[in-house]
């Protein structure tokens, strides 16, 4: 891989740009591994976080009425309380602090959790809390008539949520989901505090070897930028694809001449 860039090889870097190329070449595998780990944590963490967010968001939207039995009402009440406590806790504390508390907390009770696993856990929990609010808002944006249309045909409230409300909410919050992913991609950088060898950690290590912090962080800034830029484009395409076309074909086989 590095061979391809041989003609660019710099042995005696002078300017910052030369230093950036030099460091990239010298620590190529470190930057690649950091990038892969950053992607790994942010992708897994974001998607599990989305799933958690959907569950919590739906729980927060649960409604009980006089139709329901007392045990169900109590159970729903407890679920909602737990859900809102969780959302508040994670939205009202910094992710870097959450990372420390979760990583050291878990190790302190004797579970030998790896930094990467803890990093994913923190990302999931953090994403879930923000996503829950997004989902709640997305559900709220769907006209009540959509639910009533389904209820009036005998669909249960849960099935209505799954087949009618969430698919529509999903479309509305897709841009926000893309946003969350990009935020996570960048926020994984704070996980260096629990010794996760992601991009930020790579830059810190590389910069320390030559005391070239400025150049080293510029390298990862470029990497973060390119990653986010590309993902942004991908999300735009996905959004467009999900929205579909404005055209539809008449089913001519059912055209009648009356």
């Amino acid at each position, binding site marked *: 891989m590095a061979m391809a860039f041989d003609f660019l090889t710099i042995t005696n870097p002078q300017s910052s740009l030369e230093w950036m190329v030099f460091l990239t070449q010298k620590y190529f595998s470190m930057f690649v591994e950091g990038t892969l780990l950053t992607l790994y944590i942010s992708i897994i963490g974001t998607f599990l976080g989305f799933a958690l967010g959907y569950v919590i968001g739906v729980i927060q939207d649960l409604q009980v009425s006089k*139709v329901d039995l007392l045990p169900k009402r109590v159970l729903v009440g407890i679920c909602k309380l737990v859900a809102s406590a969780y959302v508040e806790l994670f939205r009202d504390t910094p992710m870097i602090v959450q990372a420390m508390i979760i990583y050291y907390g878990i190790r302190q009770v004797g579970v030998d959790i790896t930094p990467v696993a803890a990093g994913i856990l923190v990302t999931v929990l953090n994403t879930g809390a923000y996503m829950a609010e997004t989902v709640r808002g997305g559900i709220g944006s769907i006209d009540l*008539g959509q639910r*009533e*249309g389904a209820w009036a045909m*005998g*669909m249960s409230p849960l099935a209505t949520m799954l*087949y009618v409300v969430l698919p529509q909410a999903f*479309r509305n919050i897709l841009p926000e989901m893309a946003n969350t992913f990009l935020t996570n991609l960048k926020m994984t950088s704070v996980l260096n505090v629990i010794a996760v060898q992601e991009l930020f950690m790579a830059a810190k290590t590389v910069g320390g070897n030559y005391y070239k912090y400025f150049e080293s962080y510029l390298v990862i800034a470029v990497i973060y930028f390119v990653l986010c830029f590309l993902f942004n484009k991908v999300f735009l395409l996905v959004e467009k694809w999900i929205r579909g076309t404005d055209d*539809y074909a008449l089913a001519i086989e059912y055209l009648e001449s009356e």
Partner: protein
Amino acid sequence: MEEAILGVRDLSKSFGNHEVLRKIDMEVFPKEIICIVGSSGSGKSTLLRCINRLERQTSGQVLFHGQEVRDVQSEINEYRSKVGMVFQSFNLFDHLTVLDNCMLCTRKVLHLAKDEAFGRAIEHLKQVGMAPFIHAKPSQLSGGQKQRVAIARALCMNPEVLLFDEPTSALDPEMVGEVLTVMRQLASTGLTMVVVTHEMAFARDVSTRTIFMDRGFVVEDAPPQELFQHPKSPRTREFLSRYLEG
């Protein structure tokens, strides 16, 4: 006498201190076409929504074949699958095509096989003249077309009675005509219908019984010839004169 499909017993509904329905009694027999008329705020839509259990009554009962529809979600679901509803604002599922709108509940509620659900959907979409539009999304249709799809969607459930909540009130005059034509044709098939409407001509010509409501009361309940030509109550006369003059 034949058994009533639907019964409403002593039904009252309040929103806070505001009494919307006051001790309503009514029955719906097979093949009846009942039109409920009255000025806005008279409680007719609320009555229909109480019948479908979208609103919970403050007191009284809703009966289905003489059995009370109790406050149990599964019973309510089962009951609703047999009592169709068409809304003023159509309430088609915006994310689904016309065909999928007509198949979602037959698949997920009645658990029909795919081809059977498809067959029903096409049959009823043909009935309302919307079969060529199966691939369209609701946002691509006119109001009248949406309402016709909504009617087909409700018919796919094979309801014993179909409730219409001001089905033409959100439509411009031209589209009102196309929806009323479909409803007239449905009425001729022997479908039991309860229609809350402001279309007096429809009530007069199509209904087998017209109910006039005012301030939460059923003021008059009579065959349309009687109600429109010889209204008993002064309030009914006043209301009708405003609609029928000229």
